[in-house]
């Protein structure tokens, strides 16, 4: 038995093959990652909870299966970091909030269950902005996560723990959720791959809701193929989620292996360029568009005027839904309870628990949403925002009538400094400017690394957007870009991450 190279720097596909081929055991792979976490997570703080016991038990189970000659799945024995927003039976789930401190769910999310069924080894739960509200992971109640490319910078958010765990080589795979960009933006600023599948493509059962009509779980990885393998493992209809789509999952793995975009028509969104975009980001983006053309695609400019209203509309819809979704946190049945002194009544206890349990951004959004839904304001705020949503869908429909996919920068800037935007919610919100329209329309998006910005040396992501249930196109384009750039650079961009 031998495995050539560092287990923690390997791809998921290679690890799975090595485990299947007997070159390495799942236990060795898992232990290597646990060791890596023990070594570097102090600096990165990607994990809120490391489930050493559970991970090693699962790995042993995979090794036993193999020893018995049972067939192993495509990701059997491969470690994964799970965003702490998915419920895990018997393993704490906090959503980055003090409100859920100490809560151990009695049930598995569908994504969790499917990962277990695929024999993926869940290493632990990753840090996130509280209840997935934020773009920097600074809103976590348990401390910020640091970007492995530069520890003074944010790893993106809300899924900063998941993206950082990949860039820090603590896990080859991670799961995120994307409500306004929380998978794609972290992927972009950490030089990793992140995919928001079509809304309804991956079950939301057991995903603690931020904004139900926008939330979507999805795969995070260091390569497009790894993301596709993970996508295939978690996607598909779930009768427990009414909004889950009952159609076959597009063959994303085949698309990732195809890596060929000859003859595709690719639209460049006119609205996502110009003022407010970092020069280095624009430069890498324009080079990417040139590359797509070189690879045989036809490039056209696409006008999506309503995208200009996506951000304000999003900040009405998401808080509205969140104000209702988070109402259940009343400290009655689970979670942290404050002020239960035998004198305070139920309303006081709820109020004190919420005061202590929710952070400022969560409170801000609950208040915004409560206001937007209140009688007399509903039509002007929530109602108008839904109309904007319809307009955004129409812009996409018109665009996709002409092109196969759309591209844009994933986020207007590279990773900003920790603390830089913490006191400026509006600046923070702009990080999701390019990613929000896909959530509003429910289609699919990917961020794939396209180099380091020449002005600050930090990773830049290319966003690819495909129509609903055409997720395979993301992988086709993403893998073609990845292969071309790897060829050009001689090795994957992720190898440039400084040693920790």
């Amino acid at each position, binding site marked *: 038995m031998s495995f050539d190279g560092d287990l923690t720097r390997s791809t998921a596909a290679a690890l799975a093959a090595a485990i299947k081929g007997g070159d390495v055991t799942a236990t060795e792979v898992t232990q290597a990652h646990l060791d890596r976490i023990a070594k570097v997570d102090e600096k990165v703080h990607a994990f809120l909870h490391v489930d050493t016991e559970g991970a090693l038990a699962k790995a042993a189970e995979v090794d036993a299966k193999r020893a018995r000659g049972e067939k192993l799945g495509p990701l059997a024995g491969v470690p994964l970091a799970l965003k702490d927003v998915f*419920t895990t039976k018997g393993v704490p789930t906090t959503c980055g909030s003090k409100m859920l401190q100490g809560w151990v*769910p*009695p049930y598995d999310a569908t994504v969790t269950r499917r990962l277990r069924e695929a024999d993926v080894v869940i290493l632990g739960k990753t840090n996130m902005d509280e209840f997935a509200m934020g773009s920097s992971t600074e809103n976590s109640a348990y401390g910020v996560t640091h970007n492995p490319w530069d520890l003074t910078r944010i790893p993106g958010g809300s899924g900063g723990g998941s993206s950082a765990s990949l860039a820090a080589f603590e896990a080859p795979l991670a799961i995120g959720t994307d409500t306004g960009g929380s998978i794609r933006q972290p992927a972009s600023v950490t030089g990793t791959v992140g995919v928001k599948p079509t809304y309804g493509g991956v079950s939301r*059962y057991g995903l603690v*809701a931020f904004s*139900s009509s926008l939330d979507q779980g999805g795969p995070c990885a260091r390569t497009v193929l790894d993301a596709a393998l993970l996508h295939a493992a978690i996607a598909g209809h779930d009768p427990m989620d*009414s909004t889950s789509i009952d159609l076959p999952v597009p063959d994303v793995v085949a698309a990732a292996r195809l890596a060929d975009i000859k003859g595709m028509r690719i639209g460049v969104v006119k609205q996502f360029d110009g003022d407010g975009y970092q020069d280095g980001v624009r430069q890498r983006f324009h080079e990417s568009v040139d590359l797509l053309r070189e690879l045989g695609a036809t490039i056209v400019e696409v006008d999506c005027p309503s995208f200009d209203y996506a951000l304000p509309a999003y900040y009405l819809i998401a808080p509205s839904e969140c104000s209702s979704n988070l109402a259940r946190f009343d400290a009655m049945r689970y979670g942290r309870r404050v002020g239960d002194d035998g004198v305070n009544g139920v309303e006081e206890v709820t109020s004190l628990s919420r005061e202590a349990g929710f952070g400022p951004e969560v409170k801000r959004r609950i208040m915004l949403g409560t206001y937007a839904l209140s009688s007399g304001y509903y039509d002007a705020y929530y109602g108008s925002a839904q109309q904007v949503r319809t307009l955004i869908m129409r812009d996409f429909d018109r665009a996709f009538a002409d092109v196969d996919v759309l591209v844009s920068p994933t986020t207007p800037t590279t990773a900003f400094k920790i603390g830089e935007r913490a006191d400026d919610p509006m600046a923070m919100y702009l990080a999701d400017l390019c990613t929000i329209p896909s959530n509003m329309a429910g289609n699919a998006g990917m961020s794939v690394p396209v180099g380091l910005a020449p002005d600050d040396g930090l990773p830049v992501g290319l966003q690819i957007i495909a129509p609903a249930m055409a997720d395979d196109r993301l992988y086709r384009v993403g893998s073609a870009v990845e292969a071309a750039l790897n060829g050009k650079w001689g090795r994957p961009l992720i190898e440039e991450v400084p040693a920790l």
Partner: protein
Amino acid sequence: MSTSTVNLPSYEDALATYDPVMGLEVHVELGTVTKMFCGCPTAFGADPNTQTCPTCLGLPGALPVVNTKAIESAIRIGLALNCEIAEWCRFARKNYFYPDMPKNFQTSQYDEPIAFNGYLDIEAAGKTWRIEIERAHMEEDTGKSTHVGGATGRIHGAEYSLVDYNRAGIPLIEIVTKPITGTGEHAPEVARAYVAELRELIKALGVSEARMELGQMRCDANVSLRPIGREKFGTRSETKNVNSLRSVERAVTFEIRRHAAVLNAGDTVIQETRHFHENDGTTSPGRVKEEAEDYRYFPEPDLVPVAPARTWVDELRGTLPELPSVRRNRLQAEWGATDHDMQSIQNAGAVDLIVQTVSLGAPADQARKWWMGELARHANEQEAELGDLAITPAQVAELVTLTTAGTLNDKLARQVIVGVLAGEGSPKQVVAARGLAVVSDDGALLAAIDEAIAKFPDAADKVRGGNQGPAGQLIGAVMKTTRGQADAARVRELLLERLSG
């Protein structure tokens, strides 16, 4: 603090000045096997919190899935209420805080109900009233709180509360009437008849047992008064969770009197919810609605719209049973009952009881006689519904058989009823245990007759002389001796025979 009736104007005086307007909201728990949005069972009476899951406990991450059977029931109710059925409708979240509501919002329907614009014809006070239905919509029930300690049994003042979530998520249909006007003095009667008719309809549809005492059907009664002749409605009060037909009638009656007192004093009625008190028939204020409560309704994003196919709706229309009013007309003809009889039977909730008794072999007139006579009297005494008496249609049928066979006379039968209601067993068992059978042995009767003749010789002579008047005194004496267990007709026969000889 409940308002006492002492200082209220009489009902008649109130109605001489004011015209009542009602709005009735009836919640019906559907009898589906599983809950509205999860697979938990709905069976009544299980240990607290044993019929729960992440979804109906509102655990973080859990999601609802609509129970198709509940939608089917809702559509059938809508069709039976002559409603239009929405081609496309959504669930909505009704946001408010209450400890027994797991998500702190109720999944309900707002401006897109599954059924709307219908009516239900009912009979009360000798005429037919068309009650217009505004809407029937689907929603989920809340958990059930028990407030421990404190004087009122309500949350305020309690030491602590226990919550049972078994009921949380049980499917409910809320049926809302349009304002009911023009009922005048008959308002309480109409309210009761409407709820009774609705209950019959729900039961006939088989969508719920609609047992009000178990909370499977609950009525919120909105009442307002306006001076007679005025167009504009007065301020309404909403008396919540009125849980029997009798209480519906009493609550409306009381509120009419209370509102009249307030208006007579020149005050304004406060818009508020009120609680009804079974013990004295009064209501007391619940929470005051200082401003209209803002439920911040918005479409439920966790559920997809409901779009029942027209073919399905038509199919369901085909499954509607004989509606209670049609059935009642048929039964009325079969039983040869007058309109008035039939209405009393209906109001007493006796239709099914009589039908069942007849199906077990009793003649209809006998079944009616016992249910609407002696048994109705007992129900009234116990302040209970007829159907809640501790006697079954089978037992009544047995009683009828015993009287028809002459084993019991009416007086004895009434004693048997007392025994059955007291839990002493079936009529036959009560007859045996209490030794109540009619004395049918002529020898024993003749001995008693001779005793009576000896005791009242004057009366006997008069009868011998052809004057039958005093025979009653002699028969009475015989009945007394036999402790009422004689057949009076046979006694008369034997007596006259004896004295003519």
